């Protein structure tokens, strides 16, 4: 996990965008909690810059 | 008296006297006065003075130049030469350089790894090791030849020595290691500083049982403690050092202002005891940054004045 995070950091993306949680298939409530946690982290960081870049690219193509 | 070189140290040993050597560390600059002053302090109390060679890989004024300085003062230098920094060309060349100033003693060492010093990013050479350097000096002196086979005009006349640590690992080969150095041609040995006298005497017995004490002259290393702190530091932090707890306790139980005196007392007592041990031919007093105490130690050990040879 740290390795992936450091790769993200070196290409200019926030390492917090990726995370790993451990749980069993019987731990429904925990799963929901982790999903909410990750959701709030991502909302705090804003949309993935790569998505933004892709949108810009499509816009450029449409303009031409 | 059977001597091979004009070395004063060799003459003292050949004359059956206890030899005394000490060492001076060159400065981290080009001021020769630093070395001259240190040598001046100890000159009447020793037979020869070691000049260290970029010790602990810290760049300093070189041993060769410092030896020349003290030779010009009329004193007897021991050129220390490590194999870490020079290839065989430079080693032979510097030996000739020393010989051109009639420096008659050399101590052959490998040298601490450069990562300990101020140039950790540098290369190390180790074209030869210390034992091969001993062989090289003997070849240059006894056969008048370079390693490449050519003749040397005015070969060096150097008395050849090396270092030994009786407390070094590995345990199994302690005597064999000294045997190798003697077989390579080492004529005198300066040991690491000794505090565990019992263990050292056992090592000397092994050496004598093998007859090595007759092949090479062993000078026991002695270092006085300046303080209890120094004793503790050396015991815990310096590799290859064997300092018994009771020695450290003796220092710590002494009030602070009396500690230097106690350190000197321990050194003198060690010398007195080791004088009686078979195979001990002298002492190498290492008082780093405390050279002014060497005269006192030599005097109190009954080794002053130095013999006329």
């Amino acid at each position: 996990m740290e390795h992936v995070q450091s790769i993200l950091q070196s290409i200019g993306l926030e390492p917090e965008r990726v995370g790993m949680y451990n749980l069993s298939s019987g731990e429904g409530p925990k799963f929901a909690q982790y999903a909410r946690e990750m959701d709030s982290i991502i909302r705090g960081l804003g949309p993935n810059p790569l998505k933004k870049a892709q949108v810009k690219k499509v816009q450029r193509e449409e303009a031409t | 008296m059977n001597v091979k070189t004009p070395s004063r140290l060799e003459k003292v040993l050949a004359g059956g006297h206890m030899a005394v050597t000490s060492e001076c560390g060159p400065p981290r600059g080009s001021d020769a006065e630093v070395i001259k002053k240190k040598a001046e302090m100890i000159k009447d109390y020793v037979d020869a003075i070691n000049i260290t060679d970029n010790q602990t890989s810290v760049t300093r004024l070189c041993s060769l130049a410092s030896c020349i300085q003290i030779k010009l003062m009329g004193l007897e230098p021991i050129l220390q030469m490590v194999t870490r920094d020079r290839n065989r060309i430079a080693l032979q060349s510097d030996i000739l350089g020393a010989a051109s100033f009639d420096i008659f003693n050399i101590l052959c060492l490998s040298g601490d790894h450069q990562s300990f010093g101020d140039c950790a990013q540098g290369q190390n050479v180790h074209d030869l090791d210390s034992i091969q350097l001993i062989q090289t000096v003997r070849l240059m002196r006894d056969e008048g030849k370079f390693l490449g086979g050519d003749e040397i005009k005015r070969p060096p006349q150097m008395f050849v020595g090396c270092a030994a640590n009786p407390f070094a690992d590995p345990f199994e080969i302690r005597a064999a290691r000294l045997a190798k150095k003697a077989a390579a041609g080492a004529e005198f040995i300066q040991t690491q500083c000794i505090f565990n006298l019992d263990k050292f005497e056992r090592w000397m017995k092994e050496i004598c049982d093998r007859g090595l004490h007759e092949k090479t002259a062993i000078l026991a290393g002695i270092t006085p403690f300046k303080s209890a702190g120094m004793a503790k530091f050396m015991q815990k932090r310096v590799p290859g050092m064997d300092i018994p707890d009771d020695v450290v306790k003796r220092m710590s139980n002494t009030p602070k202002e009396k500690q230097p005196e106690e350190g000197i007392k321990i050194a003198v007592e060690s010398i007195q005891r080791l004088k009686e041990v078979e195979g001990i031919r002298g002492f190498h007093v290492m008082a780093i940054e405390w050279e002014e105490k060497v005269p006192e130690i030599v005097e109190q050990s009954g080794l002053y004045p130095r013999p006329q040879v």
Partner: protein
Amino acid sequence: MIVADKKPIDEIIEYVKDKDRILVLGCNECVTVCEAGGKKEVGILASALRMYFMNQGQEHRVDERTLERQCDHEYLEEIRDIVDQYDAIVSLACGVGVQFTAEKYQSTPIYPGVNTCFLGVTEERGLWTERCQACGTCILAETAGICPISRCAKRLMNGPCGGSTQGKCELNPELPCAWQLIIDRLQALNRLDDYEKLMPIKDWSTDRAGGPRKVVREDVQS
């Protein structure tokens, strides 16, 4: 084998950031075993580069290919007809492969993607250690199978030095003292007396010191 370690991605980005079409070229041999430049690592690097460029709002083409080796003509020939499609190749092979690729494809810049470290072994997954310095004149028969040139920090022929402490090197308490290892092995082989033999001065002319080396085998040349 040759052991290498990945170069930091930002260093590689510096090399190729102005190149529009990039080929990441891996090697299936040593760098695969030490997990630095095989197919998997090619994929990771290519992916990271694509994401980097996207993040910059640029569109660069980053392709992936892994060859069997990059030190033999026949494998490097396999990319001859696609090489012109690229402005740069990042080779994840060892220094040998990077250079051989560069020699073959002189008009395409080739950049190294790994740091080539040493000749060594896999002690366990994730731990590779040095064993050989390719001195050209192997003395392992004298030293009971342990090399003092590659495993002694001072390459002593008549070691150990005074810094050997409890079987470890003065450099690092985790580094075994090569001479302790040699002595232990001599003892195990009942050859401890051999320790006292004086090892002769080494002929370094077959080592790097003698200049770039070669091996010629006329009996197998055509």
